[in-house]
């Protein structure tokens, strides 16, 4: 399934900056960064359980927010991208 993850992390102090780094890292481990705090993750159930638990552990519910959008194939196919930094499509042939 394709999951869109967006987050807001309060980075007023050193602790917030740390949470931001660790949340971004968790998302980058499983998905593709499409904008600054937006990741698209193509995951199986096992990966999603792990990633979700990791994110919920890292964020501070009193200061930060996390949003998960579950996209079906139709919604994913309807996605448009305009402008710079077109993200990599991991289902395209990977030939380097």
């Amino acid at each position, binding site marked *: *399934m394709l999951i869109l993850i967006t987050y807001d992390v309060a980075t007023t102090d050193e602790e917030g900056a740390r949470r931001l780094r660790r949340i971004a*890292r968790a998302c*980058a*481990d*499983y*998905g*593709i960064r499409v904008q600054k705090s937006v990741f698209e*993750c*193509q*995951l*199986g*159930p096992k*990966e999603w359980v792990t990633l979700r638990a990791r994110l919920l552990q890292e964020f501070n519910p009193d200061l930060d927010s996390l949003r998960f959008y579950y996209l079906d194939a139709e919604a994913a196919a309807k996605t448009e991208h305009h402008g710079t930094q077109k993200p*990599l499509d*991991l*289902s395209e*042939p*990977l*030939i*380097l």
Partner: protein
Amino acid sequence: MPEIIQNVLYLTTPGLYIQRDHLTFLIERDGTRLLSLPAHHIESICIMENEITLTHGAMQLALEHAIPIHYLDEHGRLRARVTAIPDTSVTLRRDHYRAADDPTRCLHIAQAIIAGKLHNCRNSLLRGARETSDPTAKDALQSTIDALARLIQNIPDTPDLDSLRGLEGAAAQAYFSAFNHLLKQQQDPFTFRTRSRYPPLDRINCLLSFLYALVRHDCISALTVAGLDPFVGFLHAERPNRPALALDLMEEFRPWLADRLAITLINRQQIQPHDFILHPGGAVELTPDARKTILKAYQERKRENLHHPVLDQQITIGRHFFVQARILARVLRGDLPQYLPHIPK
């Protein structure tokens, strides 16, 4: 069936540097970051160039995710394979070896494999005969189609592997003799005369060999994932360093996947005579750019959906390798009476 679309990572450019970055592969060239790929997207890594560095960390990441790493030479031949120590069922392996030691079971499985291959060859020629308007080509194709039909009928009567291999040889000769009639463009530079390998001696053999190598790579991966030993075959005799079971499994894929793709690439002129290097002494090699073109076409073809009759659902062609390997594993376990080769309509 994993829900994630997994992909083969092909590394073909000299100077690539692949290291681990947490759970992703970080790919750099000349100090510039090219890509960061999450490991769970990768099904296998295929290294096709000497001047590529894969760090020990990246290798660890691959092994943790059960991603096999294949080292191929410039013709696409498998040179080495790095896999984690398999944790797959040892009972299945024992069943596999017992079946391979039993001549009757070998023959049954080999007959199914050859039947699949010949049906697929015949279907490919039938399609060629439908599409051609040239009466000579139509006649030649039709007579080969009839010859293949007779050979298919004779398969169950073959008493042993040697006679089956003889039948297969006759069928291959008939099939390749009609092969030229499937080309609509560039017939001259791509005329097929006889099959040559190690090294290929003309362009069409060079193209076919490269495609077969890609199919073989996918068969090895699929069999390994299914818990089978790609080196112990039924139709193909065991020889050191020969992935006999992968050669068995790929038979049914050759006509409709590799041969058809070669024909398409030639007919659409995506591959042309200048894509080949003719060496003195006769060996023919693909240019690096041509290899990339073929890889791209092959990978794109594998993303197309095709109906699988056993599962009764649409799955990508790339997943058909895994399904067929699993059907074979079920036969060896005794859960299925006979191997069912995939014969696309």
